[in-house]
């Protein structure tokens, strides 16, 4: 038996709300498979399984209760173990239409599914909060069950229900039937008239009322960033290095390369910079890893964190996992996917917690130089400013070249300025031969 606990959701994240289960008891799960969705201060995080096996029990139902990282949420079993809930495809477990057979499992599945809340991105949640719309029971019309702005706006208009059959959640309906309560006699507490289980007579008032602050994703994220950055500046002795890197050759190569490519294959300068950083980290491996319990634990793979600034406020820094196993095109594909999912609030738990180093590129925001603050427990962060034409001296003459200001912030407990300098020099050298990246 394996107790599946709510995994780490990032260094600055110690709790989350279980929003949905994507598996049911009896389901076979594989390592890396997304099995649940958890809402955190930084949006919806997809929780991955870290074992091969199958789901025995789901211990908790989706609710608005905040769960600490480490809370047991499911019981998994490896395929060799005996079963509790019954595994549908186990030898000898033919379809048994009885209370102890797989049918039981189906019952559990239905109950869990009825409780699954719709997927909601933080901006939409914010809108719902502003309009006073309760997201539970809202019918999503967006792709993949996403709640859209229109869904929220529609729900903000009070709906009159002339129907003889009162509107109620499946759970409330079942509960009412079991206790012989006439739903017509129940006064709904929600403004849209939907009867929920708590509206039934005698229902325990166990609804968790979160403080107003928690419902504003912008402020919640700001608090998460504050926690992480306070810890960073309190614990990590930072040192800072910077150098201007000539990108003339790299940009020329990129324009030429992109000329013949379709839109979907086009490579952005950011991918080139990330690729150069990944290779350079192999030359200075002490920048790649974590500071844990008073010592540096180097990582043999590069999980490259990428800071993505969110227009709703704040930022997230999910990782391109195993970036050192990707070529330039692979980095570009991963970056594109990661940014899109960061925007829609669909990142995975491993991406949020496993970065071994982070890169921030504020070039699109127009500043020349960035002096990053390390994300604990990482030990380095690389920054790139705006890519722009600047005067440079080439063979005694002043000419205009495309350049970028690269910076490195690193943990002085692990490396010194010399090692950090070698890293930036390596990034510079690699970017002078873009065709080899």
């Amino acid at each position: 038996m394996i107790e599946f606990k709510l995994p780490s959701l990032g260094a600055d994240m110690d709790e989350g709300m279980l929003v949905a289960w994507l598996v049911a008891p009896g389901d076979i799960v594989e390592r890396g498979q997304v099995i649940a969705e958890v809402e955190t201060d930084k949006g919806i995080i997809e929780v991955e399984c870290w074992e091969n096996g199958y789901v025995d029990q789901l211990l908790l139902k989706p609710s608005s209760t905040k769960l600490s990282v480490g809370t047991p949420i499911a019981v998994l079993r490896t395929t060799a173990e005996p079963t509790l809930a019954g595994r549908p495809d186990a030898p000898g477990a033919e379809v048994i239409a009885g209370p102890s057979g797989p049918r039981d499992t189906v019952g559990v599945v239905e109950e869990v599914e009825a409780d699954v809340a719709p997927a909601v991105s933080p901006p939409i949640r914010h809108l719902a909060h502003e309009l006073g719309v309760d997201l539970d029971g809202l019918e999503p019309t967006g792709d993949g069950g996403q709640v859209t702005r229109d869904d929220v706006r529609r729900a903000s208009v009070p709906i009159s229900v002339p129907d003889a059959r009162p509107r109620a959640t499946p759970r409330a309906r079942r509960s009412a039937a079991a206790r012989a309560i006439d739903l017509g006699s129940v006064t709904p507490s929600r403004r849209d008239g939907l009867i929920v289980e708590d509206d039934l007579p005698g229902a325990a008032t166990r609804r968790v009322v979160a403080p107003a602050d928690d419902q504003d994703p912008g402020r919640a994220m700001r608090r998460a960033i504050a926690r992480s950055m306070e810890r960073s500046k309190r614990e990590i002795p930072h040192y800072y290095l910077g150098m201007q890197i000539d990108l003339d050759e790299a940009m020329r190569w990129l324009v030429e390369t992109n000329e013949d490519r379709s839109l979907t294959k086009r490579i952005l300068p950011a991918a080139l910079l990330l690729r150069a950083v990944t290779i350079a980290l192999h030359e200075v491996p002490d920048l790649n890893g974590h500071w844990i319990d008073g010592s540096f634990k180097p990582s043999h793979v590069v999980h490259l964190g990428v800071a993505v600034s969110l227009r709703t406020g704040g930022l997230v820094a999910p990782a391109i996992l195993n970036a050192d196993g990707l070529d330039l095109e692979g980095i570009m594909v991963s970056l594109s996917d990661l940014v899109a999912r960061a925007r829609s609030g669909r990142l995975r738990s491993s991406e949020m917690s496993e970065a071994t180093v982070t890169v921030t590129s504020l070039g699109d925001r127009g500043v020349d130089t960035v002096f990053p603050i390390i994300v604990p427990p990482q030990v380095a962060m690389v920054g790139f400013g705006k890519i722009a034409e600047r005067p440079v001296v080439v063979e005694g003459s002043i000419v205009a070249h495309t350049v970028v200001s690269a910076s490195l912030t690193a943990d002085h407990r692990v490396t010194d300025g010399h090692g950090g300098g070698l890293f930036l020099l390596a990034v510079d050298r690699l970017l002078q031969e873009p065709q080899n990246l």
Partner: protein
Amino acid sequence: MTTDEAKTIIFDVLSRVAPEISPDEVEHDIDLSEQLDLDSMDYLNWLIGISEVTGIDIPQRDASHFLTIDGAATYLVR
């Protein structure tokens, strides 16, 4: 394709790339990346989305037509 149809597609894709942006807030004749704070990756994802929906290829040299909503609509209609 009419200008209105083109703009419907343009905004449809924009709302996927930048779900937090409300279409009513967007000025049609002002640089899109600047007013909406789109980064280069959002912008490329927007171009890719438009190209996928319309089937119109947008070569690198034509990207300058897509700086504004109006410019993009004009390009798609012609």
